[in-house]
Each structure stands twice: as structure tokens, then as C-alpha cells.
């Protein structure tokens, strides 16, 4: 099309230059038309050129928006990832805090606070639904002598070994906690006195094995008091009774289980 246009324009230009056309009355009209056409054509070219420039600018602007959008999306993904990471860290810290507040540091058994909470909920459960539970209080015999003879480090080893033996031998739903010093309190939920007594005897045998220490094996024994919950009584009352049962076991030459 453009080539045809060029050819046509050349033909018009040739006619205008032809001396034979000089006197033709149509020549000035043709020349005027030709000049107008060229001016219009130049203007059209400029318009097209400007329009193209605008389109290019728009395309660049669109690209910038797109890049900006992708950058924001990446930034958002990063914020979410880091934020998730922080939440994860907080959960771990919470778990650690929970362990610290419910576990005994030396033996890693549940601590006194934990078993007291469990006792409270056990008593509250029984007051609504009936049933019973038992408590056993185990105490290492002659622990003071072990400590005085072999030192606290050996004493700690003995305590830890007995703690693990007790925890290993209780049932899944029983709780064995370090009650303080060389005493361990065991909660037997939904258990009658006769069964608890047998369980305590099993624990006594499990705990009564020589403990390997840095200063050679040490023979140990434990005394255990056992008692069953009496409906309507408080935590203090059952704790006093289990303590009395232990005291009696100590009085009966130790290394035995006494049920009150």
C-alpha cells in the first residue's frame, strides 16, 4: 500500500514539474491539493508517533505497577513467614515455662504444685460423679545417712534413680510426684485401698534395688504409707492420714507398706 502511495505521489510530482502542465489551469489546484495532502500526512505521522509514545509510557507504568505488586506480595509472604516463626518460638517458650512450673528439676517428675492441682480436680470429680482414689507416700529409708556418708551428689543420683523406678512402675493414669526432700507422693485414681496396697508393694520392690553410683552400688529401701480417700474430706485431711501411714511404716522397721 505504502509503495503504491509512493508511486502515486511520484507521478503527481512528475506532472507538476512537467513543463507541458505549466499553462494547464488545473495545475495550481493540483499543486495546492498536493501540498495540503503532504501537510496532512506529516501531521498524521506525528500523531501516530505521539500516540505510540503514550502507549509505551503506559506499558512501562503498567510494568512498574506489576513489579511493585509482586514486590509487595513477596514482602507480605516474608512478613507472614517471620510472624509464624515468632509464634512458633512463643509456643516453645510457653511449653518450657509450663515444664518448669510443673516439673521437679532434679528428678523431672511432676512437682508438688502439679500433684496438688491433680488432687483438687480428683476430689472435685469424685464429689460430682462418685468413686474413690488412693494416695501413697513413699520415703527413702536412711537417706540422711546416704547423704552424710557419700555426699549430696551421690544422694541426688539415688533420688533420681528411685524416682525413675517409681515412675516406670506406676500405671499410665497414676501420678508420681516429688513431694519434697526424699518423699514421693503417688496418686492412684479410681483405685480402692486393697488394689492400691498391692500397687504400693510392687513399687516398694521396684525401688529397692542397689543403686549404681560413682562410689559403687548403694543398697536402698523405701517405706510407703497408703490410704484411701473418704468422701467429704479435704486435701489436708487425706494428706495428714497418708503421712501417718508412712510414719507407722517407719516405726515398723521400715522397708514396708502400711495401709491406714
Amino acid at each position, binding site marked *: 500500500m505504502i509503495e503504491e502511495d509512493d508511486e502515486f505521489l511520484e507521478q503527481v510530482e512528475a506532472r507538476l514539474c512537467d513543463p507541458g502542465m505549466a499553462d494547464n489551469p488545473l495545475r495550481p489546484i493540483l499543486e495546492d491539493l498536493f501540498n495540503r495532502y503532504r501537510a496532512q500526512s506529516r501531521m498524521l505521522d506525528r500523531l501516530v508517533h505521539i500516540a505510540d509514545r503514550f502507549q509505551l509510557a503506559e506499558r512501562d507504568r503498567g510494568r512498574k505497577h506489576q513489579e511493585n505488586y509482586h514486590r509487595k506480595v513477596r*514482602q507480605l509472604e*516474608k512478613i*507472614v513467614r*517471620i*510472624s509464624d*516463626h*515468632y509464634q*512458633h*518460638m512463643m509456643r*516453645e517458650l510457653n511449653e518450657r515455662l509450663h515444664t518448669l512450673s510443673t516439673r521437679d528439676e532434679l528428678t523431672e517428675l511432676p512437682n508438688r504444685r502439679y500433684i496438688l492441682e491433680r488432687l483438687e480436680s480428683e476430689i472435685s470429680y469424685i464429689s460430682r460423679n462418685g468413686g474413690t482414689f488412693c494416695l501413697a507416700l513413699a520415703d527413702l529409708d536412711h537417706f540422711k545417712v546416704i547423704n552424710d556418708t557419700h555426699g549430696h551428689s551421690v544422694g541426688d543420683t539415688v533420688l533420681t534413680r528411685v524416682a525413675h523406678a517409681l515412675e516406670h512402675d506406676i500405671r499410665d493414669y497414676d501420678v508420681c510426684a516429688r513431694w519434697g526432700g526424699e518423699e514421693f507422693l503417688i496418686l492412684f485414681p479410681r483405685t480402692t485401698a486393697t488394689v492400691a496396697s498391692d500397687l504400693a508393694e510392687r513399687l516398694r520392690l521396684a525401688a529397692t534395688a542397689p543403686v549404681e553410683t560413682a562410689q559403687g552400688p548403694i543398697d536402698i529401701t523405701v517405706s510407703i504409707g497408703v490410704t484411701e480417700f473418704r468422701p467429704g474430706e479435704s486435701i489436708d485431711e487425706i494428706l495428714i492420714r497418708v503421712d501417718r501411714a508412712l510414719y507407722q511404716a517407719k516405726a515398723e522397721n521400715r522397708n514396708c507398706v502400711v495401709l491406714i
Partner: protein
Amino acid sequence: MNDLDIPRTNSTPAIVADPARGVLSMHGDSYPENSFALFQPVLDWVEDYLTKTDQPLRLELELLYLNTSSVRALMDILDRLEEAYQENRRVSVIWLYDAANERVAELAEEFKEDCSYPFDIMAKP
């Protein structure tokens, strides 16, 4: 150039800017109710410092917990430093953490990811 001295609270870090030394430091936890109100003056300070001086800027961080909007604000600050670094400004970050909590170092690494300027993550002595 103004100093910036925002005292530490339970939910916001201590933020101190010392233009004479070219140091901006943040210490503590950050979970304010309004992160924008806390960090906008900090972003403004950084902008001001980078525009009005040609001195180096060091960001000293000792942050433990950040909520999501604080993460965003910190990323904005780090992005602004990157921009300055691309214009040949001397900028750097040093992030100190407690060796007992390695998680914080991992998080600092994530912040570092898109930064091409010196960014040191070090356990506190």
C-alpha cells in the same frame, strides 16, 4: 538532627537514636497496640538522617519478640537501609541475641535475607 529516645515498656522496646555516633538501637520486645505510632517517628528519623547527612548509619538490634505489625515496620526500616546502600551509603546492622535462644538467630537470618549490606548476627558475650 534530633535525638530519639523512646523508653522501654513491657510491650515496646527501648529505641535510641544517636546522630552524633550514627547509631540507631532497639532493645526488647515489641508488641504494641499501635505499631504505626511507635515506629513512624523511627522511620522518619532514618529518612531524615539519610537525607540530611552523609554519615554512616549502624542499626543495633537486640529484639526478642515482635508481633506482625512490628515485623513489618522493621522490614520497612531494613528496606530503606538497602535503598541507601544502593546509593553508596555506608549502612550496617548488628543483631545481638541470647545464645540460650537460637530461634532468635534464625529469625534474624530471615530478616537478613534481602539485605546486601553488612548484617551481623552475633550471640551476646
